[in-house]
């Protein structure tokens, strides 16, 4: 069935016509062209599709689009500020080698961001618990955990030095 839903997507009130059986992941990627959110396993195991719905991290592959009606959705595209300034969690990942191939990064960063909303000063175990549903096959997780710990500290007031990409 077709139906119209209205929701807040990355700060913008959005109205779309969807089909009942669409997942949120399908809506984001295939209909709205937001390709930052990745599809890995499609069955909730890998976390590459993690987004926030009403501030809670969920797997967009197992979340029906119809269920975001009247809710607030934040994807990786919604983290940076309007002028392009990266979110502290994104900065920390860039700065601390939390990204290698990059496929898991959007989901990983969304899980980390959801964690920091709940707990501004997580211990290492809290971080591991929060990203248990995000698989990374490159980094071995050490730099990712490090990035999240540093992001937490940055949000507390320390400044993170941002390294911009430079073309030689």
């Amino acid at each position, binding site marked *: 069935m077709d139906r119209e839903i209205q929701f807040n997507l990355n700060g913008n009130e959005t109205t779309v016509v969807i089909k009942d059986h669409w997942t949120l992941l399908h809506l984001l990627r295939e209909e709205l062209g937001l390709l930052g959110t990745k599809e890995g396993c499609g069955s909730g195991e890998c*976390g590459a599709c*993690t987004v926030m719905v009403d501030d809670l*991290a*969920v797997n967009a592959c197992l979340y*029906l689009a119809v269920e975001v009606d009247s809710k607030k959705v934040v994807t990786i595209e919604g983290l940076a500020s309007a002028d392009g300034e990266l979110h502290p969690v994104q900065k920390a990942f860039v700065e601390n080698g939390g990204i290698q191939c990059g496929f898991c990064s959007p989901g990983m960063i969304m*899980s980390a961001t959801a964690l920091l909303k709940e707990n501004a000063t997580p211990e290492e175990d809290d971080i*591991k618990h929060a990203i*248990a*549903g995000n698989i990374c096959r490159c980094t071995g997780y050490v730099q990712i955990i490090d990035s999240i710990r540093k992001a937490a500290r940055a949000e507390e007031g320390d400044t993170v030095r941002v390294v911009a990409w430079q073309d030689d």
Partner: protein
Amino acid sequence: MKPFTYLTPHTLDEAVSLYESHEGRAAYIAGGTDVLIKIKEEKIEPDYLISLAHIPVSEGVRFNEDTRALHISAFTTHRTLELSPLIRRDYPILHDAVKNIGSVQIRNTATIGGNLANAVPSADGAIPLITMDAVAHIYGTKGERTVDLIHFFLGPGQTVLEKGEILTEIVVPPAPARTGSAYIKFGRRKAMELPLLGVGMLLSLDADMTTCVKVRIGLGVAAPTPIRAYNAERFLKGREVTDATLAEAGQIAADEARVRDSIRGVAWYRRELVGVLVKRMGALCRKRITDEKSIS
């Protein structure tokens, strides 16, 4: 995914009557973490999904001061249970279980009712609840009925729920003073793992702090449904709780478990595990009682 129509009833009666009018072609959906995977894998092909997420029931957990019973709405997510200070403090066995179901993302949507209704032998939510003598409240066309949760499960994927019936609430009766409880999901990984074996235990001690006045042992993946180790419970009740009696109770539980080979583990290994983990959970219950006593 094969197309379906999504229906969002706002009352239990509306949900039940929608189910009736689409009988054979409809399935209920709560968090969808089991049901959507079954649809994606084409194991089921419902034309209608009837959502239970829009029924304004008392979501979450509520402690009834008069009866001292804990009421858990079936539509409560595992994450809500995990973060509940009441569950963490007074129902540690449930906290142990729900904090390790899937991931944060799964727990933010998956519900306790869905976990029970889906009825796999490994359901992590089921073992603590049968161990605490929980009662299931069920609503259907014939009105409300209750079933002791231990009798709720009939086989893998099968429960006493009749067509269209909805699990609405799980009620946990009060436990005696000096009660400790614990659950372990034993798997090869720390997270994102279904248990090779799940063991839940509840132990109540007499004022002497050694004699067992009440005990419950719940086992997951030890039979086609969640089960209790009745022989081991009978052995321990009235006895002094020592490392030796806990080990013997574990052995008895291992003997009565109906374990089998599966891709996650072989039967003999599971049987050994029952013995070891019952002993460990017994020791953890005892420690929790002592810790509790030293706090208060």
